[in-house]
């Protein structure tokens, strides 16, 4: 093809454009819309969170008056005090920590062993199991709500084995949350396991290590970053879950954070919805998540894309 012609024709106008773009005025002119767009995106992403913060710090008389102030002129900690002093909310924080922590640990323990098998062994049926796990990650939780609901009232598995009554206990949540944390953990950890070079494993086998020793002493330390990532993702998923929490838990003492947030009634007054306390509670609940996300953002991105794009 006539490459010489086309390049000759193309270079001249583009070089003029480049010269224009490199001049100070031109640079500002071409860069300005870009930075404006960046600014708009940042404001869009952060404004609701800013608004929650602003409302949490604004005292009630200002909060419920028009025209609206965009910055609290008399900031107060009162709403935070109210939120944290309610034992209901403190219990919810504790319950959520227990549930999310337990679910994360169980998923990591079972998931890393399964990922070892799926990532480092070659055997028939392996890809079937992988596809099963993948299909579980898009499994709609609502589909089994009724079944779980009746299962948790207790039933006989076989005549001598009785499934305990889990309804209205944190166990019901720990049990049912595994449905979305475990397959995801297995899927992501398998991709981490696969990425490891074979040399280390072989060297350990030559030294007479058993497969379990290889897993525990060689592979597990190597995928520690993967464990942190998937652990955090599982924790966030369990911390944020609402459908099962609102269906399987009845007594307020067993509420998790999302349920508590929704049914939260502060002490301010019976007539006015306590939006200030509400926003303080949402800030308290999300700050740790945001902090953890920002600290581990690189790893989270790696985990999210491994979980999704490789599918």
């Amino acid at each position, binding site marked *: 093809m006539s490459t010489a012609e086309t390049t000759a*024709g193309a270079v001249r106008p583009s070089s003029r454009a480049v010269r224009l773009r490199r001049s100070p005025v031109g640079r500002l002119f071409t860069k300005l819309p870009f930075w404006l767009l960046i600014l708009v995106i940042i404001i869009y992403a952060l404004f609701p969170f800013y608004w929650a913060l602003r409302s949490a710090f604004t005292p009630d008389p200002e909060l419920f008056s028009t025209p609206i102030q965009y910055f609290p002129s008399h900031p107060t900690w009162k709403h935070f005090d109210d939120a944290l002093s309610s034992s209901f909310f403190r219990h919810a924080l504790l319950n959520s920590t227990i549930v999310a922590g337990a679910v994360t640990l169980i998923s990591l323990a079972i998931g890393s062993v399964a990922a070892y098998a799926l990532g480092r062994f070659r055997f028939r049926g392996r890809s079937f199991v992988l596809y099963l796990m993948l299909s579980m990650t898009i499994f709609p939780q609502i589909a089994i709500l009724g*079944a779980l609901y*009746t299962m948790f009232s207790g039933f006989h598995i076989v005549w001598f084995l009785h499934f305990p009554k889990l309804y209205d206990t944190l166990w019901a949540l720990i049990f049912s949350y595994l449905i979305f944390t475990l397959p995801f953990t*297995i899927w992501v950890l398998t991709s981490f396991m696969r990425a490891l070079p074979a040399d280390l494993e072989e060297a350990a086998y030559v030294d007479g290590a058993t497969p379990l020793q290889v897993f525990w002493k060689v592979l597990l330390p190597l995928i520690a970053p993967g464990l942190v990532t998937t652990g955090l993702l599982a924790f966030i998923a369990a911390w*944020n879950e609402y459908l099962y929490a609102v269906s399987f838990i009845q007594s307020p003492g067993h509420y998790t954070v999302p349920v508590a947030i929704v049914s939260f009634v502060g002490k301010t007054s019976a007539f006015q919805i306590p939006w200030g306390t509400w926003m303080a509670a949402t800030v308290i609940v999300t700050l740790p998540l945001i902090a953890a996300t920002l600290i581990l953002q690189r790893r989270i991105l790696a985990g999210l894309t491994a979980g999704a794009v490789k599918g």
Partner: protein
Amino acid sequence: MSTVATPAPVPKRRRRRTKLQRRQTRLGWLLLVPALAVVAFVAIYPLGKSVYQSFTNQEFLAGLEPTKWVGLDNYRTLWHDTIFRDTVVLTIKFTAITVSFEFVLGLIIALVVNSSFKGRGVMRAVMLVPWAIPTVVAAKMWQWMLDDTYGVINDMGVRTHILSHPHAWLSEPATQLAAVSAVDIWKTTPFVALLLLAGLQVIPNDLYEAASVDGANKLQQFWRITLPLLRPAILVALIFRTLDALRVFDVFSVFFGNRLGAQSMAVYAQGTIVQDGHVGYGATVCVAIFLIISLFVVIYVTFMRVTEE
């Protein structure tokens, strides 16, 4: 390190390998036992039970009526259930709105963030913030922002004269779908953007250089290089988002509770089972939701197969 393992006579090695293979198979399955047991017990058994329950008249408060097999009765009722039909229509509308907005906005954001500039890392961190916030909490924040008297959105709208008067966004039937969609779009657009960004970063830069040497302008480059090469990432993002949107529960539940005419499919199913205690009929609703979602999966997968050729 690896050289130590290799020297071995060929026939012996082959026999050892098959033995090793058998051992690997056995150990592999053994290691999978806990995971498979959990999945079987937490997902597969309940799914079977759900399907079974959908053919019965089971009530949560047993003793009202003994549970018995009713055949296709529930499915017949479901077919004529206009409330359920409304929830299906509303959920599909919600899905169409949110997925298309999230895709277009997400693509724009991904393209912007993909160009190298100072502070790109900060930008990516900022984008993770809405994703990390619990959906319920995000819904509460927006509910307050959308408040009819003290809400900031009405205030901004009226001040800039975009709105002639404040709206009660959540109670006016005309705006309630827009209100729930806004929360979902805010919360998940960054996630879609990050997925697309990961896809963009795999596209080699040489292609763009070669194209601009050949005189292709930015728009041509976008249509001829970026979009085709981004297709796998786009499809994955669309599938994930569609399936998520179809089973939406949290935002609808927080905004509207069980208000008639403002229920998603999942809200209706949950209300039928938990509030009303109709486990049998609720299971039928759940099976129907499962089938509708599966239908979308099949459509997407066939679409992927067809366009791949």
